[in-house]
C-alpha cells in the first residue's frame, strides 16, 4: 500500500478526530496511548505527532466529545485520561457515515479513470 500521507503531521487532514473517537470507544486512554494505538492499528503507516494530537484533543474537549480525568499510567505517573462522551459517540457515527460516502466516492472515481 502506497504511503498516502502527504501532510507533514502524517495524517490526512480532518480525519484525526474520527480516529481518536474510534480508539476511545474501547475505553479511556491518555494522550500517548491514543497516538500509539492509532500508529499500531494503522500498521505503523499513520504517525500522530504531538503538534497535532494535543491541539485536536483541546478542540474535542471544547466540543464536549471527550472529557479528561486524572488516572495513573502504566509507569505509575499521574496523567490525564481522555474518555468518550455520548456526544462524542454521536459525532463518531456521523463522521463515519460521512467518511464512508467520501471514500466510496473517491474509489468510484479511481476505478473509472
Amino acid at each position, binding site marked *: 500500500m502506497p504511503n498516502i500521507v502527504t501532510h507533514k503531521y502524517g495524517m490526512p487532514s480532518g480525519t484525526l478526530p474520527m480516529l481518536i473517537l474510534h480508539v476511545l470507544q474501547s475505553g479511556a486512554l491518555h494522550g500517548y496511548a491514543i497516538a500509539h494505538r492509532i500508529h499500531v492499528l494503522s500498521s505503523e503507516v499513520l504517525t500522530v505527532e*504531538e503538534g497535532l494530537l494535543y*491541539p485536536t484533543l*483541546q478542540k474535542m474537549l471544547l466540543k464536549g466529545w471527550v472529557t479528561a480525568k486524572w488516572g495513573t499510567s502504566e509507569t505509575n505517573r499521574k496523567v490525564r485520561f481522555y474518555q468518550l462522551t455520548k456526544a462524542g459517540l454521536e459525532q463518531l457515527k456521523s463522521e463515519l457515515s460521512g467518511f464512508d460516502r467520501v471514500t466510496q466516492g473517491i474509489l468510484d472515481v479511481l476505478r473509472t479513470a
Partner: protein
Amino acid sequence: MNEFFRRLIYLVSRRRLDRELESDMQFHREIAAREGRNNFGNMLQLREEAREAWGWTWIDRLGQDLRYGIRVMAHSPGFTLVAVMVLAIGIGVNVAAFGLFDMVALQPLPVPHPERLLRLERASPNSYSSEMAYPSFLFYRDHARTLSAGMAVLGVPPMQIESDLQGTSTSFVTANYFSELGTRAPYGRMLNPGLDGSPSSPPVMVISYGLWQRRFGGDPAAIGRTIHLNNKPVTVVGITPYSLATLGGQSPDIWLPITQQAYFIEGSNVLTDFDNSSVRMWGRLAAGMTAKAAEQELRILTNELHRQHPAAVWDNEFIKSSPGGHLQVMQREMYQVVMTVSVLTLLILAVACANLGALMLARAVQREREIGIRMAIGANAARVLRQLCTESMLLAALGAITGLLLASAVLKIVLTQSDAPKWLSASPDLRVLLFTAAITFLSTLFFGLTPALQIARQRQHKTTARHILVGAQVAGSCVLLIVASLLVRATHHALFTEPGFGYERLVSIDAQLGQYGYSANAAKVYLDEMEVRLTAVPGVRSVSLVLLPPLGHSVSRETRNVNGESVMVYPNWVSPEFFQTMQIPMLLGRTFQSGDRNVVVVSQSFARRQWPRQNPLGKLVGDGKVSDMVVGVAGDAHLNALSNDDAVEQYWPIAQDQMAGAVVMVRMSGEVEGFPSVAKSISETLNPKVFPEIRQIRALYAENVRGIEMAAGAVTLIGVVALVLAGVGLIGLVSFTVSQKTKEIAIRTVLGASRSQVLKVLLGQFSWPVGLGLLIGVVAASASSQVLRQTLYGISNLDPIAYALALGFLLVTLAAAILLPARRALQLNLAKALHYE
C-alpha cells in the same frame, strides 16, 4: 452545557488547564523517550499551539501588549503627558458640546412618560404660529381621542406684586399642568383640576422656589398668605420643587390657573376669542397612540373647526407635532446651529489628532531600533502593528477619561453659572459615554493608524505623512481662527456701532390694551392721552407708536422672492414720528402724513435689492390686488433681527384698527433711570387696571449682544487652543528635524554655508505643508462661513479685516514655532557635532 460555556470555563481556569496540558505533553515525551523515539519540537511552542484551540490567546496577547504599552509610556512621561492632554482637549471639547446638546434635546424630562408629551403648533404651507387661540385649544383637547390630556400655557408680561417697581415673570397654565407632569409641592399644593379648574374657583397662585426664597425668605408660612398681584388679591397655595421640570423649559416665578386669567386682566377676552392666538399647546398621547395618529386626528378636527369657525383656521391649516419630552423642542434653525457647532468642535479634534499623529511619527524614528529588534527576533508586521495600535488605544483611553472629566467640569460650571433647571446634571449619561467611546475610537484611527502602518512597514523616514498632518493642523486652526475672528469682529461691531437706530435712552411702553378688552377706538383715546401726558414730561424728546417694537415679544417676517433671490422681509406698522423717535435717518422722500393711503416706507437695502440703481420713490409694492406707493426710504435698522444684516424692512402707517396692539416708543434726551416710575404713574391715572410693560431698549440690546459675545469668546478660546496645539506640534517637529540633521548642518556650516542657506535647507520642507494648509483653511472658511451671515451683525463673512487678523496671528505664531527651535541649529557646537560617532 454548550461549547460557549465550556470556552468561558477555559478562560477562567486557563492557568490550571495549561499546567495539565503541560503534564500531558511531558508524559508523552517521557514515554516516547523510553521507547527510543525522540521528539525535538519546541515544547513551549507546541503547547501554545494547542492552547490556541481554546480561543483565548488574544486575551493573553492583549495583556502582554498592554503591559508593554504601559512600560513604554512610563519610559517617556513627557510624551505621554503631552499626548494625553492634547487628546483630552480634542475629545473634551466635543464631549462638552455633545453633553450640552444631550441636556437640551435628548435627555427626557424627569416626568412620567416623557415620550408621550407632544408640542402642538399651528402650521400651513405659508404660515406657522407657535401659539393658538384658547377656544381652539379647548376644542382640540375635548375632541382628540389620541390625546389623554391637553395642556395650555399663556405667557403674559411680568405682573406686579404689591407695589413693586420691577415686575415678576408669570405664566397662566391649565390646572392639569402639574398633575400631568407629576409635580409634587414641597410645601402646600400645586394647581389641580379639581380645585382650580373653574373661573369661579377662589384665585390662587403657585410660586417658584426661587421667588419663595427671595421674597418670602423661605418661610413655609407663606402658604395661605394673600398678596396682591396687579392689585388683585390672590392666595399663595404652594411652592414648586427646587428642581422643577417644566414643558419647553419655561421657568416663570408665578404660576396661575388659566381659567382665572380674566380676573387678573380685567376685560380680557383671550379665553373666548377664536382670533386671538396666544396659548402654547402641549398634549399627552393616550396609551398606545403614536404622534402620527394624533396628527391625523387633529387634521380632521382642524377641518371641523374650520367648518364651525371659518375665521379661526387658515387655508390648509394642520397641527404640527414635535416631541415635547425634552428641555427644548428642537426647531429646524436650531439644527443649523448644532451643525455649525459640531463642525467647529470636530475641527479642533482633527487638529488635536493630526498633532498627535505627527508627534507619534516623529517618535517612531526614535523607536526605530526597538521596533527593529522586535522584528528581528520574530515578530511579524501584524504583531508590531497590533502592539502599536494597543499603545494608541491606551493613550486614547487616558485622553478620553481626562476629556470626559474636563467636559463634566465645564458642564458643571455652565449649569451653575446659568439659570438652568436644577434637574439637569453634569455627570455624563449613557448617551454621552457612548458618544465619548465612539469619538475616541475615531480619533484613535485618525492619530494612531497612519504612524502604526508606517512603522510596521519600517518606513519611519518618509516625510509625506508628517507633512500632510502638519498641513491638516494648519488648515484646521486657520478655519477656527477665521471664524473666531469674524465673531469677535461682529461683537465689536455690535457693541460699538449703532444698529441703524439709537438704542440708548429709548423706552417702550407696552400696555397690551387688547388683552384688557379695549376696542380700537378706546385704545386710540387711551394712547392719544398717554402721548400728550408723556410729551409733557421733562426730558422726553419724541413719542410715537409702533405695532412691533424693537426687540419685542413678537416678530413678524416673511420670505419674499426679490429679483430671483429669497429675501427676509420684516414688516412693521408705525406712526409718522416713529423714524424720528428711533433716530432712523430718512434717506429719501418723506415719512407718513395723516391721511396717507396705500403708501409705504422701505429700508435702504430693500430699495437696493428691489430696484437696483433706480429711484425707488413712487414705485409700487404689493401683490397686485393692493399696491402701495413708496414715499420714503429709511436707513437700515434691523429692529427685530439685530444680527442679520441680510434682513430688510418695510413700514406701513399704523391703522386705526391696530391701536389695541400698539406700543408707545419714547425717546429721552437725558437719562432714563427715573422714567419708568413716571410712566407708571401716568398709566395709573389713565386706567389703574392696566399694567403696561415698560422696557429699556438698551438693556434688551445688551442682552441680545451677550449671546454673540459668549459665542465669540468660546470660539476664540477654541481657536487659540487649536493654534497653540499646532504651534507646539510645529515646535516639536522642527526641533526633531534639527536634531536629526545635526551632522548635515555642521558639515554645511564648516563648508561655508551662510546662516540663511542652512535655514533654507532645514525649513524648506515645512514651507509647502504650511502654505497649503493656510490656503485650504482660507478657502474652507470663506466657503463655509456663509451659514454664519445671519449672526454677524452686518459684518460680511468675507470681511477682509477679520481674515487679515486671523492670518496675521496664525503666521506670527507659526513663524515663531518654526524659527525658535531652528535657531538652535545655528548655534551648534560644530566640533562636537562632527566628533560625534
